[in-house]
């Protein structure tokens, strides 16, 4: 809960301070300082958790690739798992490291059109890739 609260204040910061940097907000009140320290610790923990998750996901990709080599699973199964893992990894980095958890409400209007264009581009390419016209 405290983490969410901090994300709000973190995100809203730019509302009230415009171009001022985050580093300028010093908390003079004792209670605030305590809350700030708690939030900072929560943030630190979330960064470390995401880092560990990214390492585990990378290992999963590598292991699935080796399983294909061993003939245990089919290349298609492995490719599907590996690409899903890549999307999850990218999501983790964007959501936590790039602070989209706090900033999505502010950047979605420039992100969504691009995502639509990218998905459309891949869909337009699909017939050639999948059917191969052969």
């Amino acid at each position, binding site marked *: 809960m405290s983490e969410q609260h901090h994300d709000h204040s973190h995100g809203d910061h730019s509302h009230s301070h415009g171009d001022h940097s985050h580093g300028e907000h010093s908390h003079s009140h004792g209670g605030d300082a305590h809350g700030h320290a708690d939030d900072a610790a929560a943030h630190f923990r979330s960064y470390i958790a995401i880092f560990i998750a990214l390492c585990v996901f990378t290992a999963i990709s590598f292991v699935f690739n080796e399983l294909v080599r061993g003939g245990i699973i089919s290349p298609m199964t492995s490719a599907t798992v590996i690409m899903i893992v890549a999307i999850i990894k990218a999501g983790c980095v964007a959501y936590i*490291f790039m602070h989209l958890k706090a900033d999505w409400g502010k950047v979605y209007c420039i992100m969504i059109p691009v995502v639509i264009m990218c998905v459309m581009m891949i869909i337009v390419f699909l017939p050639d890739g999948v059917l191969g016209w052969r």
Partner: protein
Amino acid sequence: MIHANDEPAVPMGLPLPNGKLAMWLFLVTEIMFFTALIGSYLIYRNGQPTASQPWPTPHDVHLAEWIGAVNTFVLICSSLTVVLALWSLHVGNSKRAVQYIGVTLALGCVFLVIKAYEYQQKFAHGILPGRVFEKLDSPHGYKYMRHVQEQLEHIEKHGGVNDKAKKACAELLADIRAGKLQPKDVNERVRGTKSIKETNPGKEFITTKDSTYVDLPERSRPKDAPMVEGILEMDTHAHLSYSIPFGNMWASCYFAMTGFHALHVFGGLVVFAIMLVMAWRGRFGPQNAQMVEVTGLYWHFVDIVWIFLFPLLYLV
């Protein structure tokens, strides 16, 4: 009459600092850029190649998965350190922030050094756009044979392979000089047939009709023909060329995607170096939090691009 001052305040623009907004706008153009590169790669990879003329596997093109995995780990670590640098500034520890930025810079350099090693391997094995031998029918085949002859003469003169491979090289060179061999035979004796199945996992399920375009030894020879131990199976470090279907297209895609990505990494390192110089001159502190945040956004994006390049090039 309504005066301007009476109008309700309308929020102007997105509620983001200018620098951060500019970076996000830049990043969405970057998303389009890399989507175009990756999309083109997917078309080339899945469109033209067929079961008998497959897309190169990582081993065909001297790409080691573990090297890609290490580089992935390095970039993930650097993503963590850059976000911790920003975190340190928020908690008022500028000194620690500078240390994290220094570690990020070092990790980025490690990434580029590993990438440079990989590129050096590609140059050493001639896996470059326009330099890979794909077709072995004439006149390409005879060009390929002449090329291998030159490589064998170099090995004969300078060595660089183990004794068993050296003996096989001498025999192959003698046979080429005697005019006994066709390009397909040379390719087979360089590449070998013993480990072809291991280096092409899953390919045993696909049709085995003869290829008129390329010559994976496994496909172009009769079923009951004896296995040939290739020189590259005796010594994987021998610098001998072999036929790689779609090798030129693969090399073009590989160098375009990883090259642009490496340039992005280099760009990020320049900014981190500037931050360190600022710190060295005593001009780095909490007032630079936005600079660190915006650079961090860029760096994380570079990490995300690699998160997709790694499986697409090394694994899938």
